[in-house]
């Protein structure tokens, strides 16, 4: 099999059994790789209703056919499991070097089952696979652990590690890699922790065969030249996603003080320009990426120097805006704290912002917080509450469950401003005046995540109040994204450098010899999208369109200030968007795929 590693490695941490099987050709045909593999394997292998943090849950780590090849941005890997945040299918996509390395070790997929009886890590050096003791690493921060593992095993190993938050089963614990890349969303880090699995250390030195190497070289060579000539490249090289901060504030879409506003008055102090002047040390790329959006930075606080990759836009939005941490030193430090503790900066920011608002409104008091005076903009109380969360101390144990469950515990109407859908905190776009973006959050299969369909640019392009046509565009985007997640590539060359989508089926054919048209690939995407919907239906006690509703703040409260001031979503528009979305998808009025649609996709 060209371009694929060709093997599935299965590790059972309970029994210690390690098995290697050939990749199933039918799985390849219908699901391609990466997220497609993950969704199918988890749907088939997970017993409905299981505890996401129990030994029956499984973690699937999957590369795509183009990962590790001479293809721009071919460094993306999927981590997936039943999510402790949403109790449904969850995954998180991560850049860095791991996607490539796992294939050089000969594997496309790693399936981790069971639970180790003591802290462990998985050691993979090509064909040599071992479950090793991790006593010396357990309890250490994620950045610290990765460095310790590199010192112990060698620089050629690539790591996926969790921090204390993962060990302590925080439902928004992330998986960290390459000193700044994270599989941040849906709490897969907690699933690792529940399995007593501190890390995966991996090295591969095998070659991947290419079906038509000359053609792949020419195709990619041309595409890279095109990327280099694009006028936006310079901004991306210099600032990465942080360049979005200014734009987002100008659009009034920057979540601020727990989404009370879409504009943060202090945004100029946390922008990409400020990072460029004050903190950036190195432009850091994932495997094969000409854009290098990772901004490796350094800051000094309390007489100590901290190194961290970021803040990325999402961190600037969810900690900078949403917790109102308005200077670059504090924000960079907050980013480091999250990375070392192993907390997703998106959900982490949202949870702290929620707690700050609850404290401000008197819903929680000093008695609940053990005297921590939570205040928007205050890095000290941010740090104190974040540490309580990571170690599940006091109120931290409640907040560690995410804003949905925390708001159920706190009551007093706090659910209205618990900014989540399906249990996953909304990421960095205020959407009351962006119906397509709001619909993207509402219908996202893993909960409210922006980049399954980054639709806000469509709202801006065609008119922000317009409802018509928005569902159609959201669906198109929801089908483009899985193509990238399945083939193992980053979408940003397409989004930001206008790289043609037609390149990908061509590169796929040159690399693998498999002939798919772009439409064929999009059909695979639709299959994956419907499959994760089936997963959600299977796991929901009381399934209905209510699962796709945004938090009440979006339709009961106006945006407080900035360019989108006074805007609010209308309930009838929300229903109109959903009706249109379901109809176009071939789903019934409750959001269930119809038998005809499932048949068409080969899912019935």
């Amino acid at each position, binding site marked *: 099999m060209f371009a694929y590693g060709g093997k599935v490695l299965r590790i059972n941490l309970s029994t210690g059994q390690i098995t290697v099987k050939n990749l199933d050709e039918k799985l390849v045909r219908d699901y391609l790789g990466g997220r497609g593999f993950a969704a199918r394997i988890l749907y088939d292998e997970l017993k409905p209703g299981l505890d996401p943090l129990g030994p029956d849950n499984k973690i699937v780590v999957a590369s795509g056919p183009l990962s590790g090849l001479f293809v721009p941005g071919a460094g993306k890997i999927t981590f997936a499991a039943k999510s402790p945040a949403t109790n449904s299918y969850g995954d998180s996509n991560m850049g860095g070097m791991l996607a490539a390395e796992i294939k050089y070790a000969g594997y496309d997929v790693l399936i981790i089952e069971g639970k180790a009886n003591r802290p462990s890590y998985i050691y993979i050096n090509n064909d040599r696979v071992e479950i090793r003791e991790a006593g010396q690493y357990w309890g250490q921060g994620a950045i610290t652990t990765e460095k310790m593992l590199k010192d112990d095993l060698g620089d050629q190993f690539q790591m996926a590690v969790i921090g204390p938050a993962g060990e302590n089963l925080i439902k928004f614990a992330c998986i960290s890699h390459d*000193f700044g890349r994270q599989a941040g969303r849906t709490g897969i880090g907690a699933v690792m922790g529940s399995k007593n699995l501190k890390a995966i250390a991996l090295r591969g*030195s095998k070659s*991947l065969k290419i079906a038509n190497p000359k053609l792949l070289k020419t195709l990619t060579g041309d595409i890279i030249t095109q990327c280099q000539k694009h006028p936006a*490249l310079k901004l991306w090289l210099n600032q990465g996603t942080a360049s979005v901060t200014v734009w987002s504030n100008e659009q009034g879409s920057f979540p601020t003080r727990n989404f009370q506003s879409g504009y943060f008055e202090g945004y100029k102090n946390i922008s990409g320009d400020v990072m460029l002047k004050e903190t950036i040390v190195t432009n850091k790329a994932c495997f*094969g990426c000409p854009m290098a959006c990772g901004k490796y930075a350094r800051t000094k606080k309390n007489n100590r120097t901290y190194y961290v990759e970021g803040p990325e836009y999402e961190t600037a939005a969810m900690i900078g805006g949403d917790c109102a941490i308005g200077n670059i030193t504090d924000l960079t430090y907050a980013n480091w704290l999250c990375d070392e503790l192993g907390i997703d900066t998106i959900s982490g920011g949202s949870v702290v912002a929620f707690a700050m608002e609850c404290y401000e409104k008197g819903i929680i008091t000093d008695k609940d917080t053990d005297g921590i005076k939570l205040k928007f903009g205050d890095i000290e109380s941010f740090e104190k509450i974040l540490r309580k969360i990571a170690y599940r101390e006091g109120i931290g144990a409640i907040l560690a469950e995410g804003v949905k469950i925390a708001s159920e515990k706190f009551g007093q109407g706090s659910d209205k401003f618990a900014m989540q859908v399906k249990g996953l905190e909304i990421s960095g776009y205020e959407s009351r005046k962006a119906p397509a973006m709001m619909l993207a959050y509402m219908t996202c299969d893993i909960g409210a995540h922006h980049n399954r369909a980054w639709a806000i640019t469509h709202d801006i392009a065609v008119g922000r109040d317009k409802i018509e046509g928005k569902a159609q565009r959201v669906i198109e985007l929801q089908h483009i994204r899985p193509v990238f997640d399945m083939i193992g590539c980053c979408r940003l060359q397409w989004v930001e450098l206008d790289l043609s989508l037609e390149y990908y089926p061509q590169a796929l054919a040159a690399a693998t010899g498999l002939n798919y048209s772009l439409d064929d690939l999009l059909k695979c995407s639709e299959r994956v999208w419907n499959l994760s919907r089936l997963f959600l239906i299977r796991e929901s006690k009381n399934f209905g369109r209510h699962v796709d509703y945004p938090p009440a703040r979006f339709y009961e409260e106006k945006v407080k200030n900035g360019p989108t001031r006074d805007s609010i979503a209308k309930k009838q528009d929300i229903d109109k968007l959903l009706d249109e979305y379901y109809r176009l998808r071939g789903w019934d009025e409750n959001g269930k795929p119809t038998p005809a649609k499932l048949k068409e996709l080969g899912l019935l």
Partner: protein
Amino acid sequence: MYLTADWKKCTGCRLCLSVCCLCHFDEANPKKAALAIDAKFPEPGTFHPRVCDQCGTCASVCPVEAISRNKDGVYIIDSEKCTGCGACVEACPLKVMFIHEDSIVPIKCDLCKECIPVCSTRVLSIKE
């Protein structure tokens, strides 16, 4: 003529390694490339490419004279003559000759220049 690298611009993307392997072996494998990148993280957070400066040490230590200088001043390994003793790899002052389990012949820069244009930050260039 030889390859030179401005390490301060390197983003660690490894496109140079990928294209090197693809051009010489028709495969994907950055560990089969004639250059390498050292990543120094978490501190100081910098990348350090290692490239061959055609110093000729490899040729001078080769016991079977398998490495010779061509008209451009580039040292080329004759894979027929090479016995895989590893003396050149050992002696290479910049550690830019590489051994991979697929072959006994070390991998060395032949100055094909394919790595230069794929780098979007223009780390690599030719020195006369």
